[in-house]
């Protein structure tokens, strides 16, 4: 039986994912072998217990982001991280520009290409700038100074502001409810962005479903 492109993406993705898993675990092993120290299980266990919350968000992220990133995009994004501040906006922007829909093969191709491009550029830019910063401490002090640090602090808002301009203008009817609901929620409790994203997605989908049933969209 001939395999479809999507079947092949899953085969390649699984192989790369498992290879990444093994490779990433080898990093602390290599550090331990090199330094000839093995940390006490008690310290690692206690540290992991303090960040157990991330295990839950890890599960939620897989379920919530996979349909938006596409198959190739998901395999790639979870290997390289920085999903919300880089991979997801890249994927959304590329689909908008190419006028293709998520969950189609065209959408799959475009998101994969956009995310690959982002990974290569990000990896190289980080490398170049870390080397520059390491060699020129005064430059890293300047970037972390009161002049420039506010810009990096607000970078997420500039990303999602520009995405909002595209999406909210196009889908303004279903945009009002989730923004209002999230803002009101935040006035009472701020659970952090890890919780806020799935809450926002669920609220937005519920609101849109109601409007769809009422034939308003």
């Amino acid at each position, binding site marked *: 039986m001939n395999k479809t492109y999507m079947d092949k993406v899953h085969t*390649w993705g699984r192989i*790369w994912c498992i290879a990444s*898993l093994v*490779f990433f*675990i080898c990093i*602390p092993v*290599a*550090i*331990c072998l090199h330094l000839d*120290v093995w940390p*006490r299980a008690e310290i690692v266990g*206690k540290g992991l217990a303090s960040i157990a919350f991330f*295990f839950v968000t*890890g*599960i939620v*992220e897989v379920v*919530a982001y996979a*349909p938006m990133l596409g198959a*190739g995009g998901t*395999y*790639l994004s*979870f290997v390289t991280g920085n999903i919300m501040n880089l991979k997801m906006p*890249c994927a959304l*922007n*590329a689909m908008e*520009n190419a006028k*293709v829909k998520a969950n189609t*093969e*065209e959408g799959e191709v475009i998101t*994969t*290409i956009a995310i690959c491009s*982002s*990974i*290569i550029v990000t990896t190289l*830019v980080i*490398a170049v700038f870390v080397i520059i*910063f*390491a060699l020129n401490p005064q430059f890293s002090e300047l970037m972390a100074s009161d002049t420039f640090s*506010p*810009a*990096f602090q607000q970078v997420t*808002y*500039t*990303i*999602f502001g*520009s995405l*909002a*301009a595209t*999406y909210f203008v*196009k889908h303004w009817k279903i945009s009002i409810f*989730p*923004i209002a609901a999230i803002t009101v929620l*935040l*006035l009472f409790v701020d659970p952090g*962005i890890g919780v*806020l994203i799935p809450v926002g*997605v669920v609220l937005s*989908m519920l609101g*849109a479903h109601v409007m*769809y049933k009422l034939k308003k969209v």
Partner: protein
Amino acid sequence: MFSDFKNDGFMYLLILAVIIFVCAQAIFFMKKAWARGKELGIATDKLKNAVTSSAIFSFAPAVGIAVTVITLSVALGYVLPWIRLTVIGAIQYETTAAIAALEAAGITGGISQPVTDPEIFAAIAWVMTIGSILPLILIPIVLKKIQKGVSNVASKNSKWMDVMTAAAFIGLIAAFIGRGLAGLGSSKENIIGDGAGVLSLAALVSSIGFMLIFTLVNKKLKKNWIEALAMPLSMVLAMVVVVLINQFAPDLAAIEWRY
């Protein structure tokens, strides 16, 4: 003996291996997707646009990530944060994981002091790694099933699916917009720009404004390069607005309604 163990040649070899691995994976998928795109008849311009737009867009956030590496380098040296923020890592996760491991080892004061004990350094590397690998175990098992479920629903009711997909994206964006409007600062100290205030609002409003201007200009001129550059340029220009407000109106920049 271990005075510079965090930044020695071996650590640089590790990051080099990570960079080669990550780029090889991206090039592999890019080649496959490009070939499939051509088979599907997607215009080369559209494919190129996806590459250039994403590449330009990624530049500024990548510099932001490099700045985070520097922030973490005081405690962990350059290479471990560099590795972690090149793979799986996310800014908020790595810092939290490093502090959790330090506290588990009985060291208070967070990441402001250099780690001098190789055992604690190794423990931090383990906590950062194990704490973030769950998705890599889950994805090979569940992703195909999730995608199949989504495709089935999409084939049964495509209009509903289109609305739901747009709603999911909007929910995601709304979470960040909401934080910019009413989110609390993430640190106990009162850092300017941390919580919702003039700077977050300026970043949101100006990036939305610039994006709308570029969209309108592109509607008139219909140029591919404007489309590709619209988002990264809107983002960078909005960052410039934030820097200017902070520089020339510091009292205004300091106003936060949530901190």
